[in-house]
């Protein structure tokens, strides 16, 4: 097993510059404001010419103290805050939190609510992957897929807006189920969407998958093995592209995912190209799940029996879901009052970002940007 201390380098920036007389090494700062860092992320690179010797990430520019806020709000009041972490995939965040609190209360959302949750969460997964694809392609230089993916994502956001009134930070679910019943024409909209999108995904693939330049820019860039992924706690499409076939929706199903039939795409090499292929395939699998959910949407109540005041008994719970970025976990400690005693949010982007150093070592500077893009990090989640 590789020596774990080699995984993450620290550049000893506070110490006297040992490389002072060595004119080959250069410390380059990819500052917090940069078009390609997907938010406010600062990466300090130690370069030898064009080759990267080590990196250090400085995060915290978007830290808003969400966990501290949680201790001062009631369970239901905290629900909207959760959307603002990974703002691109807000529905998943809400799903994880509501399910965690429901577990603490020992209730389960009724079947119709579960199906509605699955439909919206998978739509959100599609939207999140579309944002990822557009921005990742833009970083590598292909300007056009961005506009195509954002255009198609509009259709998803229209459905969200009609359902709960918001496009991005949706606050779609409540503790115990869903608040809103599906609107008139929801199923028709979703089915139209399911017919509308597959040719579009084919279009994105046509632009990129066999494009010689794309393949050269992404193959063998940012390679990481499955064992390293597990050791570093990396989850999500990054882990699956490295060959480990693990998805929480199959391993520890939640919200009724065990009733749906879908596959888990994996890659072989663990490089950027494989991550791209895995996410494209995941988009198609999401369409499959949505179709099954919409076809089999049961009738019934959408809200379980939870009191108006949510007061879970004393105890703690850890619940995680498969967010588009990886394993999103909520560790909630309750002391019997209406406000949680501690909410710990385990963000997938935060843990995944640790692996940046390992993946980028020995590669060129232009690859750093490709690798940051392939992680699909959202700084709101990294910093909370």
């Amino acid at each position, binding site marked *: 097993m590789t020596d774990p201390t080699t995984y993450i380098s620290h550049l000893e920036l506070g110490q006297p510059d040992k490389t002072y007389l060595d004119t080959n090494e250069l410390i*380059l700062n*990819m500052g917090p404001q*940069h*078009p*390609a860092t997907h938010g406010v992320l600062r990466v300090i690179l130690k370069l030898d010419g*064009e080759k990267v010797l080590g990196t250090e990430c400085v995060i915290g520019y978007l830290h808003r103290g969400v966990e501290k806020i949680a201790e001062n709000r009631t369970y239901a009041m905290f629900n909207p805050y959760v959307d603002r972490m990974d703002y691109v995939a807000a529905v998943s965040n809400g799903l994880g939190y509501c399910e965690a609190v429901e577990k603490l209360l020992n209730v389960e959302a009724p079947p119709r609510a579960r199906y509605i949750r699955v439909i919206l969460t998978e739509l959100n997964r599609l939207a999140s992957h579309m944002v990822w694809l557009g921005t990742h*392609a*833009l*970083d*590598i*230089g*292909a*300007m*056009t897929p*961005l*506009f*195509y993916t954002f*255009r198609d994502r509009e259709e998803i956001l229209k459905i969200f807006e009609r359902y709960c009134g918001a496009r991005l930070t949706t606050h779609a679910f409540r503790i115990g189920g869903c608040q809103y019943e599906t609107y008139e024409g929801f199923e028709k909209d979703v089915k139209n969407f399911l017919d509308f999108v597959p040719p579009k995904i084919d279009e994105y693939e046509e*632009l*990129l998958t066999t*494009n010689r*330049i*794309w393949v*050269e*820019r992404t193959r063998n860039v940012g390679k990481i093995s499955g064992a390293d992924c597990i050791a570093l706690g990396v989850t999500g499409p990054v882990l699956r592209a490295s060959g480990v076939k693990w998805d929480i929706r199959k391993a520890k199903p939640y919200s009724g995912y065990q009733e749906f039939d879908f596959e888990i795409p994996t890659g072989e090499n663990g490089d950027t190209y494989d991550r791209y292929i895995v996410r494209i395939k995941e988009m198609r699998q999401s369409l499959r799940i949505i179709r099954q959910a919409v076809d089999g949407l049961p009738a019934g109540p959408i809200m379980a029996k939870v009191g108006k005041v949510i007061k879970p008994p004393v105890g703690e719970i850890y619940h995680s879901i498969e967010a588009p970025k990886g394993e999103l976990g909520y560790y909630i400690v309750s002391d019997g009052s209406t406000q949680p005693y501690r909410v710990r949010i385990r963000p997938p982007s935060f843990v995944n970002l640790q692996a940046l150093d390992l993946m980028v070592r020995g590669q*060129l*500077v*232009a*690859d750093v*940007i490709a690798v940051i893009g392939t992680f699909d990090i959202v700084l709101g989640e990294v910093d909370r």
Partner: protein
Amino acid sequence: MLDYITSYLSSNVTPGQAGNWFWATVYVFVVFGGVAVVVLAMNWLERKALAHFQIRLGPMRVGPHGLMQPFADAIKLLTKEDIIPAQADRFVFWIAPLIILCASFTVYIVIPFGPTHAITDLNIGILFMLGVSSLSVLGIVMAGWASNSHYPLIGSLRSSAQMVSYEVAMGLAVVSAILMTSLNSTGTGTLSMIGIVQAQQEQHIWYVFKFFPLGLIAMVIFAIAMVAETNRAPFDLPEAESELTAGFHTEYSGLRWSLFMLGEYAAMGAVSSIAVTLWLGGWLRPFPNWLKGSAFDFVFSLFPGFTFLALAGFCFLGVVRMPKHPHFRIQTIGLAGFGALLGFIGLVLLVTPVRVRVQDIYWFVAKVAVFMYLYIWYRATFPRYRFDQLMTVGWKILLPAALGVLIVTAIVGVLF
């Protein structure tokens, strides 16, 4: 004096060859004016075409369908504050864009728009073009150096390395086309631009089709190398914003930056002209030998007029589709006026004396326009090459291919 002016009108050589200063100057103004118009048009077309590729509209407000956008941009750039970094080398900072501009514009004096429609015709024409356009590398290095900041410096060094690498492949592809000019009855080739097109005329074939597929491969190599030469996508790593080094023109603002852009578009036009002259038959109309005869000549001579009439038709279509709202009245009138202007030009081009004379210029410009559109298409479609991959393509793929094509062309030329 008047004799001096009129004496040229009966000659059949370019003014430069005839030694007529007056007409040479007139031609210079016409050509440079034309290049300026082309740059403006390219600016507009790039923004509109890129936008349409990306399912959006592009500039729509500044003039009807954004037609006045290049003027607005020019005015904006001219009125901006002229910022020079404090530690910059002022003279070098000032002269770098001028060098690029001069180098890019000077090559236009040998570009043949027709058998006598060129400013001059050097008998080393193609060599002159390749040589002078290489001078712009000097301007780029100077720009990066004078900025006194290490990001532009790295960017300019990368840019110049890229340009120098692809010039080798370009040159070899050009040589293989020159070889083909010697396959005529006298057995001597020519480096003069007009001579190359005339050789294609004599040999009754455009060099892109000669010894198929050799001519085609040579043209494709040149086409790729010329995109890299002008620092355009997909070889625009040195000037892309999302990469770490932002390019040699980071520190330039306002008018100076616009000079860089002017030089870039002019260089694009110049290398496209080389490609058209060498492989696509310059000013020759399509199928001059298959479709012979005065009837075909007549039909093909209608093309320029009809092109402008078609453009005018598009304008009027746009007028019809304009929203019927008072706010759009000025735009509608403007677009109709522009359409009327284009239609007028089209009608003028259909008139017999003009029609005959404008043929060569039209076909040449049309072919160059196709290449310019391809530039925009590449930018919309391809991701960017990483710098080491870019150099790999230049040295390890294009150069051996160009050498191979050259050798095989030479052998085939001797044998057949």
